[in-house]
């Protein structure tokens, strides 16, 4: 049987109506620690010419330039901190029946969507710092090359594993679409479970 019903575009499901789920609150701590380390490095780097000048007294550069280099470093650190910490709040993800959506951004706001039937495999990573806080990174790979994947960092370990299991089950199912209808109810409950944990 083949049917080809007309579809009203305005009635299609819209990404904009989805409720996004924020990243795990502990992820902010992780970002904070990373920022701290990076800030120390940048401050050290930017102040080193000034200090070097005063130790050796040999560089023929005026103090104004050296201080302004320090100033640029401090400004960079402040900007970086604000953007990263605010950025965590702006990030969020949502599962739908057929795709996964990830939104990011404080300066550039973007929504990334990957349909499940284009996902090739899913990987869960745990970096050292993330593991301390029981978090993980989930990466969804598509055939779109190195840039065509989707990485969600900073969700709890159990949830990451659940996400992976769910998507993998989806991938194997999309190979035989006949099964989709039968297990639809199960899937919906699964989505609810994932969306409502925490």
């Amino acid at each position: 049987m083949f049917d080809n019903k007309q579809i009203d575009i305005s009635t299609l499901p819209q990404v904009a109506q989805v409720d996004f789920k924020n990243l795990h609150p502990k992820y902010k701590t992780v970002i904070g620690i990373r920022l701290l380390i990076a800030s120390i490095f940048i401050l050290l780097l930017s102040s080193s010419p000034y200090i070097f000048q005063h130790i050796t007294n040999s560089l023929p550069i005026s103090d104004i330039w050296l201080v302004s280099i320090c100033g640029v470093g401090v400004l960079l650190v402040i900007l970086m901190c604000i953007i990263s910490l605010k950025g965590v709040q702006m990030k969020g993800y949502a599962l739908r029946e057929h795709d996964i959506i990830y939104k990011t951004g404080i300066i550039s706001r973007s929504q990334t969507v990957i349909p499940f039937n284009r996902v090739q495999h899913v990987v869960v990573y745990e970096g050292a710092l993330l593991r301390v806080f029981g978090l993980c990174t989930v990466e969804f790979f598509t055939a779109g090359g190195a840039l065509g994947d989707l990485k969600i960092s900073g969700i709890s370990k159990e949830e990451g594993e659940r996400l992976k299991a769910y998507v993998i089950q989806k991938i194997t199912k999309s190979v035989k679409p006949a099964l989709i209808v039968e297990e639809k109810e199960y899937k919906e409950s699964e989505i609810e479970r994932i969306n409502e944990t925490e």
Partner: protein
Amino acid sequence: MRQSNFYRPTRQAQIGIIANFLNALQKVVRAFVPLLIVFFVNKRIELSTSIWAFVIIGAFLSLGIAYLSYRNFLFYIDEQTNSFIIQQGIINKSKVTIQLEKIQQVNLNQSFINKLINVYSVEIDSAGSKDKEATIPSMALADANVLKQILLDYKSENQSIHYTNLSESNISTEYHPIETKRISVSTLLKVGLTTNYLYTLGVILLFFNMLYDTLVNKFAIEQYVNTDEVTSYVERGVPTLIIIYLVVLLIVAILVVNVVRTFLKFWDFKAILSRETLLLSHGLLSTRNTIIRPERVQKIEVEQNYFQKLLDICSLKISQVAGEDTTNKKTGLQIPGCSAVEKEELFNILVGSAGGDYSTELKHNYRFLGFRIFLLIVLPASLFTCFFKTEFTITVYSYLIFTYCFVVGLVLYRLYRVGRLYVSDSFIVIRKGVWDVSHIYIQPHKIQKIVVSQLWWQQSADVGSLQIYTAGGIISFSTTRYSELVQLRDKWLYQVESTALNWM
């Protein structure tokens, strides 16, 4: 009849040793070219006997390797397992087995060296997911053709048995008549005259720059030419005649180089359609063969500039799945001179007709210009003013700045005017370009990932950008109506998620 019996382990043509030798030698020479250049430039080259000894030993070594690799290269058809087997390697031995029914294409190629000694390399393309290809580097033409026939006949016999159970229509589609299309010399001439001006200009300038550098170093130009005289001569103003002469010379040089380049690359361009694959072969010095399978095509780019429009030619760039490393080098391929009708036919073969109802058409917002003007005109101009103002007189300075702003501004304005996003039910088309206007076609079901984004100051103006990731590359369209993009995104997601069509 030893040669045509491929059911026993067979070696390549004996003359192939020479090809192997030349190939090895070529590799060695290429590896040592930088060293040689350094020697020549420093003029310290003293070809003492020891170096000649090295050269001779090297040559013998490559000859030995060539012979051994010839001896150890065996290929045959194994009738018990119905597979084609290639054994090779001197120290690291390898054995490649290809199921006969999986063989998709057998191509005969000729590189430049192969052409010299009149042998062909046979490439066997199989339908596995890995798309691993086997190559027999050198065979005589007659043998190669026999082998090709055997390998392909097996497939068709097998299929005809297979298809007897099925309906008649299947058989008739399977034995599709083989069509061959060629691009004539006059078309290539047209292509050469109308493309790649900037690229060739860059190459020529680079070449002259290098030439000049070496000449100056070699002859110490000051000895022959009085530089002061030249400078004063230039300052008095160069006669217009000389400027015109130089410009004409440059244009002629560009055109000649372009035509030669096009001939070298696309000489004897053939497109052969068989068994639902498109086989392209071209090249003057070395013939290159590429196979296009419709299901692997991800993106098609049609490029045409004003002159080409007048001559009714366009060039097609076809992106296939950028997958395994071995296929990477042939993912992007080009068909240089197609007429509009031929383009239509190719589209029909590869992705279906590109016509249809492009109901949605989006333009760039005028903000497209704003940020780019800042980045490409205001910023460079102010930096230039900061650092180099003192080095020019005010007239030269304002002349430079004005020319730069005018040219870049014109380019940006053209980009802004040309940029379009057309959407129909079966295609997404992006038009862009300045001089060469290109239309990029992708099909919605080949989308892998969609990103829509907007900068925070664009939010109130309802402006945003779109990026679509496919297995053949990324396409993007920036600064247009965001609400429309979001709607389109939802529609494409619906199309991807509800379709049974796979992306490959």
